[in-house]
């Protein structure tokens, strides 16, 4: 899952990026409010971690601006402002979660996973489409009760398809889900990963819509 981290403090930002990567997220890190707003409007992130005390543009202003622009992605506000009025204001402005620093990395990752899950209408911790079960926290996948070993990229690709089950995702969209900034994207990487997934999970699971993209149907075709 690719997320945006907006944090101006270098030490904390560096730690959060490292920690969230360990938890399996692809992390893009911006240092100021203007960059955060620009990236949130432009990129298809699964979620965002937003500090409020950002230079150039306050985090709350960023949040209000992107919400007005119709950006619906889950936003977790991570801030030192712990007063109740601040929390209320943050949530009312459009934050999906409000976490006061300092925060445990594992908890932050769990909250992010929960936010993403709920944003896709999946209340359960373990996502299920057809007979595929995907556990975002443990990063494990089962097919008809049998564990299936997937690489990091394959898992991320499958998670994107499961979260968006029933919708067609283009190759570009899938690439954006897979890679954070500075990572080289092979021109046919998505095709290669889809190929591997079909080999491991069955050819019928992921369907190709020629000229458009890929689709994981909610129900297996009869």
């Amino acid at each position: 899952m690719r997320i945006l981290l907006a944090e101006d403090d270098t030490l904390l930002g560096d730690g959060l990026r490292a920690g969230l990567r360990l938890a399996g997220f692809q992390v893009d890190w911006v240092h100021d409010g203007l960059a955060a707003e620009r990236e949130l409007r432009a990129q298809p992130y699964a979620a965002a971690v937003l500090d409020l005390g950002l230079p150039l543009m306050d985090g709350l202003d960023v949040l209000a601006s992107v919400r007005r622009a119709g950006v619906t992605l889950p936003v977790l506000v991570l801030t030192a402002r712990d007063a109740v009025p601040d929390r209320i204001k943050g949530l009312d402005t459009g934050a999906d979660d409000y976490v006061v620093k300092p925060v445990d990395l594992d908890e932050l990752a769990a909250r992010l996973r929960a936010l993403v899950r709920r944003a896709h209408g999946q209340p359960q911790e373990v996502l299920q489409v057809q007979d595929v079960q995907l556990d975002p926290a443990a990063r494990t996948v089962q097919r008809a009760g049998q564990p299936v070993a997937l690489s990091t990229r394959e898992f991320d690709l499958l998670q994107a398809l499961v979260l968006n089950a029933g919708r067609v995702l283009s190759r570009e969209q899938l690439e954006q889900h897979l890679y954070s900034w500075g990572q080289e994207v092979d021109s046919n990487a998505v095709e290669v990963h889809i190929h591997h997934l079909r080999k491991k999970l069955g050819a019928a699971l992921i369907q190709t819509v020629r000229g458009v993209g890929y689709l994981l149907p909610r129900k297996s075709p009869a």
Partner: protein
Amino acid sequence: MPGRLLPRLPRSLQGRLLAGLLGTVVAVWLAAAAATWLDMRHELDELLDSHLAQAAALLVVQTAGDIGEDARTPDAPQLHRYGPRVAFQVWHEGRLARRSANAPDAPMVTAAALASARPERDDDHSHDQDDKARRSDHKDPDHAERRPAPAGVGLGFHTARFNGADWRVFVARGAEQDVRVYVGEQQDTRDDILLALVRGMLWPMALALPLLALAIWWAVRRGTVPLRLLGRTLAARDPQALAPVLVPGAPAEMQPMLDALNRLFDRITAMVAAERRFTADAAHELRTPIAAIRTQAQVALAQTDASARDHALRATLAGCDRATRLVDQLLTLSRLEAGAAPASAQLDLGALARRVVAELAPRAIDQGQTLGLDAAAGCMVHGNDTLVAVLLRNLVDNALRYSPAGAELRVVVARGDGQVRLQVDDGGPGLVEADLARLGERFFRVLGSGQDGSGLGWSIVRRIAAAQGATVVVARSATLGGLAVTVQWPAA
């Protein structure tokens, strides 16, 4: 003497107004009564005296005809209930010829009294009898009137006492020397008439006073409604509330008080807002390094890659250093804000600068920076050496922090024009105008500086300078191109 009067006044404004207004009304009323009394007494005396004189003259004229008759017995009829209050005697050749029933046998005014006392006379009504009694050799009539009459004479008005009462007596003499007439009137009569007159004035007053008091009480009560409303409004207020106080229909006299009160609330609001902002900023500044330490430590624990773990551990240490520095700065600032003025003495700024530069030079060398000091001798200032050292350290530390590797830094201590000047120049990127203006706001730090300073250093520098009577000027360095900070003291 209001100082002595004031404590005795009623405590309530309403009571004071009521007492003051009622007191004034009563005083004015009584003064009017007293003036009336004095005026009426004068007029009454004139009127009654002229009647006495006239009665005496009539008696003299009447008596002249029948002096020969031996009429010793009183024969004046009592015609009026005031009769007993009036008495007369007619003396002929030393004998009592006639008298009223209530007149004594002896002359109403004794010969001795007549002789010793100057007749009481009013200037404005002299009588024919007096004129006739005047000695022919007197040239000045006015002067003669005031002279005591010769023995056995003494005409005019007298005050006598007989029958157990004070009498006003007029003494007249007939054309012949041997007839003398006394007409007396009880003094009480006049007082009774006066009293009746004044009572007529005072009665309505006494009746009206309670009504007046009620009216004044009502008017004052109505007038002080806004005051009581203000009292209730303030009492009912939430002690935390800082909204302006509004009293509908407040009179003009109360407006200055309300304005002053609301200005006070405004100032408190601003102070509270500043404190809240400081707390919020401080929370952010303190929590962020702690959050960084925690996060980096957790990453270090979870990392399997050795170099990544080293990186996280080093970052943890850096976070600890930053938190330590921040706590030191906050403590310094809070000590400065507590306002405890530390002892100050003469100190050599050049020597102090040498000490601080020597202290920080190793760091400059580590960072590949050149740090130099140029101190003139005898730059004495008045101040606290600990605080001035903190100021110096902050300035040099800032210069080191915000200048790139290889940059030159120069500290100059010099004197001139009765001032001692400390200047720290650096070869860093300097500041744009907008940032120069904001420098010194707590927790303001320049963006993109790549440094995790809290912005507290500048607050500390400004505060120390202000406490030591020094001025701080920040500008672009003319020699090194970065920032130039100049602190000036009056030379000690």
